[in-house]
């Protein structure tokens, strides 16, 4: 997983996450949107045959005073929390 920041301002961040596809990006986007201090989160990915930009680009907008990169870090931790909770629940039932 290679990260490359393509655009960055105080409350907005665009970052390329190389090697990922919808499987992870959509989970991440959904998790980002659960936060109240994130006003917008989306990702864009083009098909492999299109040439050009084929790695997903994640764009995050936050409210005043919140660093988008920190919000991303938090969201990644949230995803980890979800997977742990899911595994525990699944193993408890299995």
């Amino acid at each position: 997983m290679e990260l490359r920041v393509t655009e960055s301002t105080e409350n907005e961040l665009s970052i390329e996450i190389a090697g990922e596809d919808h499987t992870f990006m959509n989970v991440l986007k959904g998790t980002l949107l659960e936060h109240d201090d994130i006003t917008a989160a989306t990702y864009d990915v083009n098909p492999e045959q299109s040439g050009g930009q084929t790695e997903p680009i994640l764009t995050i907008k936050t409210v005043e005073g919140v660093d988008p990169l920190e919000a991303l870090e938090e969201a990644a931790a949230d995803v980890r929390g979800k997977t742990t909770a899911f595994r525990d629940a699944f193993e408890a039932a299995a």
Partner: protein
Amino acid sequence: MTAEYDVEFVEREDRDARFLVRGVTPAFANGIRRAMVADVPTMAIDTVRFVENSSVMFDEQLALRLGLVPLTTPPEGEFVEDDTVTLSIDVEGPATAYSGDLVSSDDLVQPADDNVPIIELKDGQRLEAEADAVLERGKNHAKHQGGVAVGYRHLQRVSVVDDLPEFEEQESQIVRGVIEDDGELVPTSEFDHDLSNRYPGKQVEVEDVPNAFVFRVETDGSFTVEELVTRAVDSIEARATELEDAVQL
């Protein structure tokens, strides 16, 4: 933010199961489904060296067939990508070569089924070959897909609202999946998928239960359903951890 999940099995066999998950967002449910199909590595034959092939098919055709034979995948940590396991086959006609004729060099990697026909050999025809199996992901080739039928549906809640008017004929109402009736989970196959069988003379209302999904998971025999689900979740978790570490730098 900690999520609360609740998992309940509806049907359960080694290779085929149905389970209900409550409290899961559509995005996360789909992430798990996609990870089960494309991101859980399984063993499959990738290279074949033919010693003798006097059958009616070309080497390449047989190599594809051998590749599609599901092999049991060893527990996590036993193998890494790029490790290979050698299997050999030697069948002389008249006979049919089956997946069960494959002899593996590793007890952990065996054909998941013994009755997959590879080719019918006539009198005097012979197939002798050596094959290397590798660990890969479904993303690269369908032969590495551990989950062959993986999907989910909303859990549907059925409630009786009223009796049917006395002279009105009841129409069949088809639903598929699993319904929740007063907290009880009922697979629709129990009443032939038709609500008019289960609730004769009643008017019913069907609604999707928010954030409750019934997963149907079938594996190709590489591993059990439990194994597939936990490995899929692990793969998402590994990526989240990787992202967290990468952002921290």
